[in-house]
């Protein structure tokens, strides 16, 4: 099983996780820029974080045989703090980088005017930089937030097939499916979605435009939820090719629209290299002690 986790916050995870992910088949991932738990109070905190996403974290992942990509944005929660508004001005610098495969996470948290302003501006940036957009749907009033999200996406001129609306559930998947946007599902131990509910949605709606992610971060979460969803699909009668489509080819297709993926040979099965390849993208990979 080869896995491309389209949404995971590796900054908050350990090297043990990278090892377990590699062993489970994860060969590529996208780390969306988001809230760190502790609110930031100035632009510099963001640029240091963005620099880590396009520098240190990319190197760290490569050491474990995993291609690291990211999305860059001012997240909705922190868009409410006027001290962070200047982040919008530094985004173009980052949106020009290789390996930055979308603008995100953008969207709504508490449905404020400030959130909507940052959301609209960043949809404009996605158009300008010819990048897809990753949209976070709120924890509270998810249905209302999703509805307003889709209205703003439509007004932006960004093609629906270049937008993933994430953290969906049974209540919100319908309107996103109708919009033509991609549907993102976060599989969590307690909240959001679980593997079996995910399988039921796949059975009902098919595999088109579906991204399954672990969204693992600093909270209770599990970076192997992508793999366990693959197992649940197989147990429910889906084929290995179906699993490959959902867990590898779909994220490759969506983020491939950016033209910024850092996979030298996308589509090649990297699972055939036992114990981690000696080189990856031409760079030495060191697993463990030096």
């Amino acid at each position: 099983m080869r896995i491309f986790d389209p949404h995971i916050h590796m900054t908050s995870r350990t090297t043990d996780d990278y090892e377990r992910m590699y062993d489970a088949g994860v060969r590529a991932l996208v780390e969306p820029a988001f809230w760190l738990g502790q609110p930031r109070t100035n632009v510099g905190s963001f640029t240091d974080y963005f620099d880590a996403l396009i520098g240190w974290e990319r190197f760290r992942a490569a050491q474990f045989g995993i291609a690291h990509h990211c999305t860059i944005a001012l997240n909705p929660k922190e868009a409410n703090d006027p001290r962070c508004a200047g982040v919008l001005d530094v985004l173009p610098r980052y949106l020009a980088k290789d390996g930055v495969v979308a603008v995100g996470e953008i969207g709504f948290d508490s449905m404020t005017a400030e959130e909507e302003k940052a959301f609209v501006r960043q949809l404009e940036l996605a158009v300008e930089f010819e990048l897809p957009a990753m949209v976070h749907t709120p924890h509270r009033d998810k249905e209302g937030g999703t509805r307003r999200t889709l209205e703003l996406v439509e007004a932006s001129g960004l093609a629906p097939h270049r937008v993933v609306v994430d953290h969906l559930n049974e209540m919100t998947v319908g309107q996103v499916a109708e919009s033509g946007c991609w549907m993102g599902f976060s599989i969590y131990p307690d909240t959001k979605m679980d593997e079996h509910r995910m399988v039921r949605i796949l059975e009902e709606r098919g595999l088109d435009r579906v991204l399954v992610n672990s969204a693992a971060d600093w909270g209770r979460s599990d970076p192997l939820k992508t793999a366990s969803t693959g197992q649940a699909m197989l147990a429910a009668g889906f084929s290995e090719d179906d699993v490959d489509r959902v867990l590898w080819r779909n994220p490759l297709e969506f983020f491939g629209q950016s033209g910024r993926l850092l996979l030298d040979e996308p589509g090649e099965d990297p699972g055939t290299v036992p114990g981690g390849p000696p080189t990856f993208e031409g760079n030495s990979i060191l697993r463990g002690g030096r």
Partner: protein
Amino acid sequence: MSSVVLLARPGELRAVLGAGRADALDALVAGVVADPGTLCRVFPTAARRTARGDLPGGGRIEDAVRVELVAAAASVLSPDALVQDLGLLYHHGDADERRAVLLGLSALDDTDVDGSSILLDALRTNDIRLVTAAMGRHARTLGLHDWRHGVLKCLFVGAPLDQVADLAERADDELGAMVRRYVVERQAAGRTVPDDARLVLRLTDPTSSRKG
């Protein structure tokens, strides 16, 4: 400028790129020569507009492309202006761009260019690719103290010492003493001693032939 040693000969790089992408590289280089202010805009996009991947003779295509862009800027900027622009490129760059700035400094080999502060930043990281690139020819701008610590850092993070410029010439007794202490510490912990550490000990052992 005394000399420029590019990562790949211009003709060979263009042969690897193929006609269309070679033309794109020529256009990027011409644009930077005409207006070096464009360097910061084209540097992040250079790999996408040309190619990424391995060079047949070793190294990476995108590194060779970006080093040509640095050389193009160096051909029209004063040394001070060049260092200022390269500092911005480095500090605003992703890891690939930072590595290319470091490689570019060593490619220039211009004694009027002092990018040592950029090298020192790279040597504070634990990114092996940056540490390695920082210890190329431009590391001659580092004072002995910083250079020795650069060599020791290479041993710590596993950056290969055959990529360190002027190692045999600059290795001195103090570096030998630092590496001996490093070896003792490794042995006390029951860990293996890297071959590169033994190389430094040989180079700094007064009883052995330094160049042997």
